[in-house]
């Protein structure tokens, strides 16, 4: 992965219609975005579809990216996640998969890879997640990483969907307060 500064430079070039820069941007970010999409969609054909939509959107919208507001990879991941979530919700798939391994990184032991790549912002976010009750934290992470809906979480945690909604929102508010932003 390139540094954030390099990615910002590539984004600016892509915004001007530089196809070579776009190819470099793709090479630098494809595995992360594919990992994100695949984790939510659990099907390679759907993840392929989302990748195409996502990168075409990045190509067209690179000019709207503002490095003051987000890092390039966060901006790109948000597009890939939203595309994946739209697709999985429309498909109405309700299969419950294994919990994401990455959630272990929250609060407790971080794996070495994560620690190496960890930004200050991520460190703070993980501290805040670590302050949530364990079930609440698992809900947030299952939703973020695996794209679980309230209904899926309700089945998993054996609680009504409305209760899940209340818990999720309370957890998110606690995260926001903890982050102080």
């Amino acid at each position: 992965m390139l540094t954030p500064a390099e990615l910002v430079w590539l984004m600016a070039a892509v915004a001007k219609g530089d196809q070579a820069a776009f190819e470099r941007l793709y090479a630098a970010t494809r595995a992360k975005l594919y990992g994100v999409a695949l984790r939510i969609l659990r099907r390679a054909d759907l993840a392929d579809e989302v990748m195409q939509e996502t990168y075409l959107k990045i190509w067209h919208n690179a000019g709207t990216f503002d490095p003051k507001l987000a890092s390039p990879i966060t901006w790109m991941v948000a597009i890939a996640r939203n595309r994946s979530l739209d697709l999985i919700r429309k498909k109405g798939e309700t299969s419950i998969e294994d919990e994401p391994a990455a959630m272990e990184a929250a609060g407790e032991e971080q794996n070495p890879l994560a620690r190496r790549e960890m930004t200050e912002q991520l460190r703070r976010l993980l501290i805040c997640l670590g302050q949530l009750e364990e079930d609440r934290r698992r809900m947030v992470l299952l939703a973020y990483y695996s794209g679980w809906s309230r209904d899926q979480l309700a089945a998993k945690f054996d609680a009504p969907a409305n209760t899940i909604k209340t818990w999720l929102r309370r957890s998110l508010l606690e995260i926001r307060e903890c982050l102080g932003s």
Partner: protein
Amino acid sequence: MTMDEEHEGIAAEYALGTLDADERAQADAMLLVDPEFAAEVARWERRLGELNVLVAPVEPPAPVWEKIRAGVAEAAPAEPMRLPEVSAPAVAAGPGEPSAEIIDLTQRMRRWRGLTVMSGALAACLVGIVVAREYRPDVLPADWRPKQQMVEKVVEKPVEVVREVVREVPAAQPAQYVAVFQKDEQSPSFVMSVDIEKRTVTVRQVAAERFADKTYQLWIATQPGAAPQSLGVLGGDDFTVRAALTSYEPAVINNATFGISLEPLGGSPTGQPTSPAIHAKLLQVTPR
């Protein structure tokens, strides 16, 4: 921050990903017309987005890039479309960073105030353009200088565009329709979305003033000049969801005019609007 708890909750859950398909469609409509909501979503995407660092990378198959490259080549040269009185680069703004785009659109709407078109049509047209840009920005005309009488075309074109895209998307799902109610051109008062299949309406109160002793009531006029029929009183919450359209055929709903009027608590005593209503018609925002 002036958003209430419900808005914030929906924005946060949108970014987290826990909304269902209907709620996401509703939130997508709000992203298009409500800059404050869009900014809130963007803030949440930044807060939670750092978690992506912990996602293990997976190499996508090589053909994925071939398809993306072909898509880009097809779209290139990606000439920005042009809208009235605005320079091209500003218009190239896309929905990637919602807050910025919506603010941009709002500013453009103000510039358009001189056009003598119904404000509802104007908003619908804006939504249509954004939808087209969302799905296929490349198909929009490169040099687009609408005159006043072109507004009808502007509204129709994106809908065709969306239908064209549908053929490439395998998943069939009900189309979403949205209507934007505006008192003036500056900000929408209400955003309504309709699920034609379930015949439900969801109304979100955006910038409409709130009164302790009055209530808003939703109306439908199935034909021009026909007496409006009540679809019920809107709740005090920002969101009101109703299975209010069960007795209307989809084609009728599609062509109807909707109105919202201010009424005494409990609704109009006469069965007809007792104050001037603001009107809007439906616009299709997702493929059928």
